[in-house]
């Protein structure tokens, strides 16, 4: 396949997200400006100007009209997707790390980093239909986990919130009371910070990637460990294919660590694994730096990867990808 290279960001990429129909791709990077691209040919549609710090995460509503972004400038901003205007800004006492719209887009779950004595929190905010009615009140605030919470997402039917972070434990919280319902097992779970989490389309299972060089597949309801995919490098980004039984995992080391003796350091590829058999299907090379973000198009026919090198690479699969046999 011939990947389409999009160099709109000056700094490393942090997150990629497709809208529900798969025609728009949103990219967040450390350069303060989330960008929206057309997902078929990679043409840039626009940028959202207003943040003053690295943008860590974003999510787009079901009808592709609202965009929410979380940034290190201690704010979470709500945007109009089409025009790029900022509709609202939630302000916090510490950098915001992860954002996720609930099913129905009425609520958004936000995590904030531990900062200056404040512990990390998970907060739920209500999103009003009309931006003029928007308030900053939190519907729910959860404090507790040690360390940074790298990702928090809604569980099935918005009944639960699933969080994962630096303490390498996955926690499931009740979304109405804030009570801790389940924790992942310490022995079989990740051993180092969990950097990324991706839900499957029907939210029945999810994939987490960790700096302990593995990615693990979990069942959402029981939090049982289903599968483990071994990598040879710390994992920064994971994605599950909505169409086939594939998962893709990307990672790499920071430039600071490149002098380690690992022979294959420097060849940054996104690795495809068979979701059920756990075998490696193959790798897609090309990034000149560690891969920080991965996303599958909802139709499963293309995927994009964002790297430390500031490039977004958009790949449309060749016909023979769909007939890979293990």
């Amino acid at each position: 396949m011939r990947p389409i290279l999009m160099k709109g960001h000056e700094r490393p990429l942090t997150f990629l997200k497709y809208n529900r129909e798969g025609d728009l791709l949103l990219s967040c990077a450390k350069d303060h400006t989330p960008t929206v691209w057309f997902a078929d040919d990679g043409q840039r549609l626009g940028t959202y100007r207003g943040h003053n710090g690295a943008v860590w995460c974003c999510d787009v509503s079901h009808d592709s009209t609202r965009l929410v972004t979380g940034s290190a400038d201690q704010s979470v901003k709500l945007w109009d997707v089409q025009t790029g205007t900022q509709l609202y800004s939630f302000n916090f006492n510490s950098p915001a790390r992860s954002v996720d719209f609930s099913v129905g887009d009425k609520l958004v779950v936000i995590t904030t980093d531990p900062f200056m004595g404040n512990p990390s929190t998970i907060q739920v905010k209500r999103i009003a239909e009309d931006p003029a009615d928007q308030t900053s009140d939190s519907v729910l605030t959860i404090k507790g986990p040690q360390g940074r919470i790298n990702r928090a997402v809604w569980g099935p039917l918005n009944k639960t919130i699933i969080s994962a972070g630096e303490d390498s434990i996955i926690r499931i919280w009740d979304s109405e009371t804030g009570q801790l319902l389940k924790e992942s097992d310490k022995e079989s779970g990740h051993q180092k910070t969990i950097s990324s989490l991706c839900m499957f389309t029907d939210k029945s299972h999810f994939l987490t990637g960790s700096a302990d060089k593995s990615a693990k597949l979990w069942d959402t309801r029981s939090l049982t460990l289903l599968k483990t995919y071994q990598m040879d490098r710390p994992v920064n980004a994971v994605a599950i294919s909505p169409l086939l039984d594939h998962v893709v995992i990307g990672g790499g080391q920071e430039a600071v660590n490149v002098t380690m003796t690992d022979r294959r350091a420097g060849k940054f590829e996104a690795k495809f694994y068979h979701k059920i058999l756990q075998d490696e299907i193959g790798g897609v090379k090309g990034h000149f730096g560690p891969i920080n973000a991965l996303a599958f198009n909802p139709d499963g026919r293309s995927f994009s990867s964002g790297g430390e090198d500031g490039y977004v690479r958009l790949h449309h699969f060749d016909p023979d990808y769909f007939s890979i046999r293990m």
Partner: protein
Amino acid sequence: MAAVESARPQAAKLRWGELEEDDAGDLDFLLPPRVVEGPDENGIKKTTEYRFDEDGNKVKVTTTTRVRKLGKARVSKKAKERRNWAKFGDAVHEDVGSRLTMVSTEEILLERPRAPGTKEEPSVSEGLGPVQPGAVLMVCRTCGKKGDHWTSKCPYKDLAQPPETFVERPSTADAASAAPGGAGRSAYVPPSMRGGGERTGTEMSRRRNDENSVRVTNLSEDTREPDLLELFRTFGPVSRVYVAIDQKTGMSRGFGFVNFVHREDAERAINKLNGYGYDNLILRVEWATPRPN
């Protein structure tokens, strides 16, 4: 009586005989029609149009495009509307020629996993011999034999590089054997005196070669001389390539030198390959000696 009536089409065209002298110039306002030579087997489409430019001159514009079908997409109505959204933010002043979005020049494949160390050469299939299904493909760089042993275990380790990798190399062992006949290997013959190379011109040409020396840095670990030769020979004849190898680990130290025969080729190589992405690292290519001007 069959009257053959040939239907004379009422042509609306002007008959030049009826035109007056002065009106002949009026025809200039008519432009020849646009001609589209449809996509041929390579997908190349040529459109020839005519238009008037700002000074009123008739201009012929030929546009050659390659039409490539990326694939069919079922697009929802909303998605189609979104396609027509106006650009905003930093994209407002974007013209079509902006270089933000580019299709990669390289074809990237989903590479199936291989056992570590095998080389993905397309010529692997030749001379394979009987290989058991499932056996790992072992390629030895020194003797070029496949399926037998790795490079470090090569029984012919101390042989010079296989002769076909180099065009001219007056100092190889092969050339040494063509020493002045009868020397019987006991007498040492300096390289410049060995047969097979230019005698008087050797030292001067080698010195000039060193001025055509190009340093290449940021090489990947498994880059070797043949890789550099293949990369640089397109610019012209190469007299020598060298890749610095760490003896302990066998990996490239990340840099090497290429000596061109002609200076202009070296210059072109520098201009073209500096910043070129090779094996996932961005090469730095420059003059080896301080810029000789």
